[in-house]
Structures are given as structure tokens and as C-alpha cells.
């Protein structure tokens, strides 16, 4: 979407985005606190599902795709909330805004950073899910990777907008899931269904349709989020 | 519970189909009227008190 504007400033937007993304990833890498926290949280969630269902391994196997995405969704709430808490400490956000960077670059960098984090988390969860739930990857790893990437993109774009809002509001821990969950239901549903197809075989060739639906919601979320985000942090 | 619901199901199938008519209709109208009345009440309770004729 950054190809539409005329050239000279488009490079400015991309460059600013990359610089901010690099900064965020560097902070992330130095402490690794957020990554560790959400990994353990997601692992605990996956475990909890198997405890809650008891020894019914058939049920776990059947619903593995849904549990996998629920674990990522719950972890994403933590990750998204943290991504702006870093900035509100020491008033970093003011510093970023004072820099001659477009607010849209902040959106792109934060959303991409969250996507990377969640995708990494998902990649780590896959082997755990295979071991815990006794599933196997029937179609291909490529398909699973694609779904993982698109699903995390779909969570991150609206999640970044809403995390920016809720990080400054009262009761932010309640607000973020309340705003985010209903919005991402369609994307999450597509991702979970497609994952189930990857794990259990795809007899009706529905995989590409779910993938398309997920892609469509991604375009909507990213387009709208990109336009509206500057208004949230402008003052 | 299982047996009770199964028995009820069998009883219903025996009698043909899910019966009903006016009961559902009255329920819908009553719920709607109650909702509208309750909302009107809530508006009245929340009415601005300080200056009823605030400038437009």
C-alpha cells in the first residue's frame, strides 16, 4: 500500500518505518522480557486446554487448530499491550512523535513488529501442539506457515490501533480484548479453519478459500488502520 | 438429564412437530415493548438536571 504515493516521500515513509522497526526489535532483543512472557503464557494456555478437556485425545486432535489460534489470540493481547507500554514509560512516545517521522510509520513499524513477534510465537507453538495434541501436519508446512503469517498480520493491524487507544485509557487490560476480539473473529475463524484443514487433510479443497478470506480481511484491517492510526496519537 | 431430554424429544416427535403460534408472537411484542419502555425510563433517569434548557 505504500506504493501508491509519489516516490520521494514514499521512501521516507518506508525508511522511517524500518528505522522504528529496527529500534523496537533491538529493544525487544536486549531484554527479551516480552517474548519470554508471551511464550510461557501461550504454552500454559495450550496446556490448559488439554487439562480442561481431560483425557479425550480425539477431541483435542479434532479441535487443535482452534486451540492453537486461541492461544495465539490470548498471547497477542499481552504482546500488544506491552508494545505500547514500552513507549509510555519515560514518555518515549513523545520523543518518537517529535522526531520527523510520520505517525503512519509508527503504525507500520508497531504492527509489523507485533506480526513478527506473534509469528515467531506461533512457529514455536507448532511443535508443542504436535506433541501435546497428537496431531500431524497432513498437507504441508508451507500452508501452515502461510496461514500463520496471514493470521498474525490480521491480529496485529487492528490490535496495534486498539492497543494504542487502550494503553492510554483506564482499565486497559479489559478494554483491549473487548475491542479487539469481536473485530478479529472473522479472521481468527478463517485461520483456525484453515489450520484444521492443514492438520486433518483438506478433502473439499477449501484451504484456498479460507486463505482468500483471511487475505481479504487483512486488506481491510491494514487499510483502515493505516488511515486512522495517526488520529489516535496526534495529541 | 439425558434420559429426560430424550423422553421429551420422543414425546414431541410423537405429536408431530414443534407446536406454537401466538405464544411466540406475544413474547416478541412484550419483549420489544418492555425494551423500549425500559430505555425510555433510563433516559428519564439520566435526564440532565442542572439546566434543563441548555443553550443549543
Amino acid at each position, binding site marked *: 500500500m505504500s506504493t501508491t504515493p509519489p516516490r520521494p516521500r514514499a521512501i521516507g515513509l518506508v525508511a522511517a518505518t524500518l528505522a522504528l522497526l529496527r529500534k523496537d526489535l533491538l529493544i525487544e532483543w536486549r531484554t527479551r522480557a516480552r517474548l519470554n512472557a508471551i511464550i510461557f503464557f501461550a504454552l500454559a494456555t495450550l496446556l490448559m486446554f488439554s487439562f480442561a478437556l481431560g483425557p479425550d485425545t480425539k477431541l483435542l486432535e479434532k479441535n487443535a487448530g482452534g486451540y492453537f489460534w486461541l492461544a495465539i489470540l490470548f498471547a497477542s493481547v499481552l504482546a500488544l499491550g506491552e508494545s505500547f507500554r514500552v513507549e509510555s514509560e519515560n514518555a518515549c512516545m513523545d520523543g518518537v512523535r517529535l522526531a520527523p517521522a510520520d505517525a503512519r510509520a509508527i503504525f507500520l513499524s508497531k504492527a509489523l513488529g507485533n506480526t513478527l513477534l506473534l509469528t515467531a510465537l506461533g512457529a514455536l507453538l507448532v511443535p508443542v501442539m504436535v506433541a501435546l495434541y497428537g496431531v500431524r501436519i497432513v498437507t504441508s508446512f508451507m500452508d501452515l506457515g502461510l496461514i500463520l503469517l496471514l493470521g498474525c498480520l490480521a491480529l496485529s493491524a487492528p490490535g496495534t490501533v486498539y492497543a494504542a487507544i487502550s494503553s492510554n485509557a483506564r482499565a486497559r487490560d479489559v478494554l483491549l480484548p473487548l475491542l479487539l476480539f469481536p473485530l478479529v473473529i472473522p479472521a481468527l475463524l478463517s485461520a483456525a479453519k484453515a489450520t484444521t484443514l492443514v492438520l486433518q487433510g483438506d*478433502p473439499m479443497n477449501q484451504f484456498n*478459500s479460507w486463505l482468500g478470506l483471511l487475505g481479504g480481511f*487483512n*486488506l481491510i484491517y*491494514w487499510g483502515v488502520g493505516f*488511515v486512522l492510526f495517526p488520529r489516535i496519537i496526534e495529541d | 438429564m439425558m434420559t429426560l431430554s430424550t423422553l421429551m424429544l420422543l414425546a414431541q416427535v410423537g405429536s408431530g*412437530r414443534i407446536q406454537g403460534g401466538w405464544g411466540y408472537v406475544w413474547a416478541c411484542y412484550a419483549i420489544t415493548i418492555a425494551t423500549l419502555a425500559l430505555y425510555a425510563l433510563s433516559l428519564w433517569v439520566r435526564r440532565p438536571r442542572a439546566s434543563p434548557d441548555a443553550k443549543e
Partner: protein
Amino acid sequence: MTPVARNRIIALGALLVAGAGLAFVAFGDIGENLVYYWSPSEMLRQGDKAYTATIRLGGVVQPGSIQWNAEHTTLHFRVADGVQEGAASVLVRSTETPPQMFRDKIGVVVEGTYDKSGVFSSNRLMVNHSNEYRAPKEGEDPNKWRETLSDATTASTGTGAK
């Protein structure tokens, strides 16, 4: 180009992207494949793949195919693509209470599994009403009409099998 105009173009481009996404969700071929229910011919075309998964099957009740066993505990009927003769159809066994509108030629959606014996076992039966609302014809009382229909289908036990 002024910064304001440039911002407008960027915003417009992003909104176009969002609009394209919505258009794709709406008019892409997604609806063809990810359907709430399948028609009998679509399900039969899948062959072996349709077995054992929980699916929804939708169509019309084939005329004259409704059949209850003696104790009225299970209901058998055929769901067809359309009301015309020779449309593809599937035999359904339902344990669910049918709603009062259930009759020949009405649209239904059943949820359940299809097995190798060619019977669709359903535990959820829904009538799919059209968007048409008509007054009863001259001298026709809808309540009475339904009752007689109900008697007729009950009486047809054992005759509607195909």
C-alpha cells in the same frame, strides 16, 4: 505536490486497499466453497471425502418421501436439489423434532454426518424459509391446513420410501 495533497493520496490509496479487501470478501469465489450448507448434488460429487465429517446439507424435502416409523421416534425423508422429478437426493435420518412448517417441498438444512450406507444421520433439523409471505388462498385456514398435512404425513408411514 503539497504535503496535504500527498497525505490525501496516501489515505485514499489505503482506503482503496480496504475497499478492495471488502469487495473480495463479498464477491470473491469464497461463497462458492465455504458455504453454510451443501446441496445434495454437491455432497454426492465429493464421493468418499464427504463421509464421517460433520457437515450441513440443504435442499428441499422430496415430495412424498417423509416417513416416520411406527413409534414416531425417528424421521426419514429425502433431501433433493429441487422439487422437480429426478433431482439428486439424499436419504436423511433425523432424531430431531421438526418445526411446524416441515412438510413436502419445503427448504431444509440438516446438520450431521453422511456414512457409507448412503444415509445422512442428522441431529439438527432446520427449515429454511423463503422471503415470500403470502396470505392463505380463498377458503384456506392456515392452521387447519397444517393439521391436515400433519395427518397426511403421519398416515403415509411406510408408503413414501424410495
